[in-house]
């Protein structure tokens, strides 16, 4: 086992996949010689050549469309969109083309494209470097969508995505690239080197899509979270001394309904946490799923913790970010007696 941060783990995933399959190619802005603005593709062009690790023009729509065409012609492209906030020019290619190609051609054509994009806030990136658009992909039929919360899952999900014959959107919480983050910006940053999920096998493995992980078993309530909020929610529950069962969704589509609902049926209480805006956020889907499956076991209304329904404001980063204070209020509400 090696110690890796999330950047190294993602890099290792692409390295392993490229080493095993000559059809795997990487493309995106600044991903080649420079190795990516977050260094996720560092060294790959040196190792695999500039014909397999392509610096592209600044055209997200072009990147995804070209990846689709490559995929149709037998390659397995891994496309990087430099920030999730910049994916929208590619949205038509993703929604109308990539997601539906298999369906509309009755399986005769498909494009096994993986789209990676850093997402989320907490890096003073303002509204153009902080968004969490997972629900915009989750709502599109034909895309698998995953958000890792740690280096181990990041590598396993990315290799799984590359090997998957369906298109996959991998959202990478950039605040977690270099270490876990519990939501308190005033604490000194910690690395992944002391975290168990910073231990990452150097070679091939996958984390399956459609499988959530119980990060912590507990009896008093269930916290359903993903990405950065797994760490924030865990810290908030620990600070309250709650025996919370914490579930990392990991795979948004397909969703591991059984794991989530078995837990809520057991605890009878549920808090859902994500960074994205609240209204019609993925939390709404999670809450509806829990309601449908656990209604008779619920002891209190399901609580949602989310970003406010505004763009991500530069000056109010920590008032916007759903930190421990917001989680704590939701936990208290969920623990109210009937």
């Amino acid at each position, binding site marked *: 086992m090696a110690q890796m941060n999330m950047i190294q783990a993602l890099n290792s995933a692409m390295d392993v996949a490229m080493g095993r399959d000559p059809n795997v190619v990487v493309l995106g*802005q*600044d991903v080649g*010689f*420079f190795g990516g*603005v977050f260094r996720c593709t560092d060294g790959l062009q040196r*190792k*695999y*050549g*500039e*014909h*397999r690790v*392509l*610096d*592209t*023009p*600044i*055209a*997200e*729509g*072009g990147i995804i469309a070209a990846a689709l065409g490559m995929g149709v012609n037998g390659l397995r492209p891994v496309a990087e969109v430099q920030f999730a*906030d*910049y994916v*929208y*020019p590619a949205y038509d290619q993703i929604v109308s083309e990539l997601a539906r190609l298999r369906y509309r051609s009755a399986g005769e054509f498909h494009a096994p494209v993986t789209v990676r994009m850093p997402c989320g806030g907490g890096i*003073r*990136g*303002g*509204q*153009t*470097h902080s968004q969490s658009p997972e629900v915009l992909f989750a709502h599109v039929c034909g895309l698998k969508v995953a958000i890792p919360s740690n280096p181990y899952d990041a590598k396993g999900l990315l290799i799984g995505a590359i090997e998957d014959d369906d298109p996959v959107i991998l959202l990478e919480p950039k605040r977690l690239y270099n270490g876990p983050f519990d939501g308190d910006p005033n604490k000194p940053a910690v690395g992944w080197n002391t975290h168990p999920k910073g231990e990452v096998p150097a070679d091939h493995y996958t984390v399956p899509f459609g499988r959530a992980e119980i990060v912590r078993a507990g009896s008093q309530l269930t916290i359903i979270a993903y990405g950065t909020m797994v760490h924030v929610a865990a810290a908030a529950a620990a600070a309250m001394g709650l025996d919370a069962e914490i579930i990392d969704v990991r795979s948004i589509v397909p969703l591991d309904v059984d794991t989530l609902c078995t837990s809520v049926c057991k605890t009878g209480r549920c808090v859902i946490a994500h960074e994205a805006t*609240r*209204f019609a956020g993925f939390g709404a889907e999670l809450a509806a799923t829990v309601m449908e499956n656990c209604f008779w076991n619920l002891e209190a209304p399901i609580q949602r913790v989310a970003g*406010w*329904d*505004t*763009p991500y*404001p*530069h*000056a*109010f980063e920590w*008032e*916007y970010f759903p930190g421990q*204070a*917001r989680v*704590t*209020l939701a936990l208290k509400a969920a623990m109210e007696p009937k």
Partner: protein
Amino acid sequence: MVNESRLHVPAPPARPGQPPDFSYLQLSPAGALPRPPTNASWRDSGPMAYGLIRVLDEAHRAVGPWDPKLGANDLRLGLKHMLLTRLFDDRMVRYQRQGKLSFYMKSTGEEAVSVAAGMALQPEDMLFPAYRNQGLQVVRGQRLVDLMCQLLSNTADMCRGRQLPVMYHSAPARLFSISGNLATQFPQAVGWAMAAAIKGEEHIAASWMGEGSSAEADFHHALLFASVYRAPVVLNVVNNQWAISTFQGTAGGEQTSFAARGPAYGLPGLRVDGNDFLAVYAATRWAAERARSGGGATLIELVTYRAGAHSTSDDPARYRPRDEAESWPLGDPIERLKQHLIGLGEWSEARHQELNQELDGQVNAEWKEALTFGTMSDGPRLNRDLMFEDVFKELPEHLRRQRDLLRAELAGST
């Protein structure tokens, strides 16, 4: 392992550790290109789309038909605006390094692109800048203290804390809100110009973007709509050779010029020495006159060099030779205009030093004033309730509720 394949992958002429090499750059001697009348057909712009419009020669004299014949006062004003822009940029980068700003993007080496164009347009013309056009803000008389307050996201921030540094705007100064998303402003400027034509106004629009951004579909939307509707707009591609780590060849500059995209859409294309204040001024004037008189849009490529990093988050030493800027064949726009003025007997090293000192003092004084309105970490802060305003014209009920929830959250955590 380097795969050989039939795919052509553009490579910059030099990477770190290699000697800078600008032999790829097509240059024309100053004064060599003709200046057609502003109502000429786009077909006549061929030489200008592939050559390079230059006015200042090697001895810093203004030569040829593109010489705009500006008076000494205008030249000195241009020099002053460019110098102020540079001093402002340098100091803001320093303050970012000291942790006083979260982020900054300087325009060093590209000052003429904004300042000369800004001066060549009318004050009522609507400008749609990109994020490296601070010279336009200076020309339009934006106070540095107002720009600094935006950079600081403080209580006097024109964006009320919503935007990353450098994403300025000013409706009164007719400077459109800068977007962090690339190229989006280009077709918007065309739409503004179409509205001006519909309403019978004489004002025109102008927009800027980098050559890297011209890969975005929005660039092509802009040229197409501008051509179809003969919109009164000046479209500027600032070819500063580098889009973060990718050189202009990756954006499609290897096989042809960016100016040549204009004729492909039926628009004149002008390829201009972007570090030649007079050439930028003259080309902008030509395009503006053409637009104002019903001739439609012009695409201008401004050939320049990004002398600094892409942003304070970038380190160009990782991907290009450290000394590349010094080898840039088109020199420095401030130095060139300064030498031109000295050659005319209208300026001197001593006066330049004096101006430098005066402007640096101004930047310093305005920074001190800006700090009184707060910083990201000290002093007065914007009211947090502002976070919920301007999402819609009226604050809707769900945001009113969220505003109250935030108040409760903050009350509970203190």
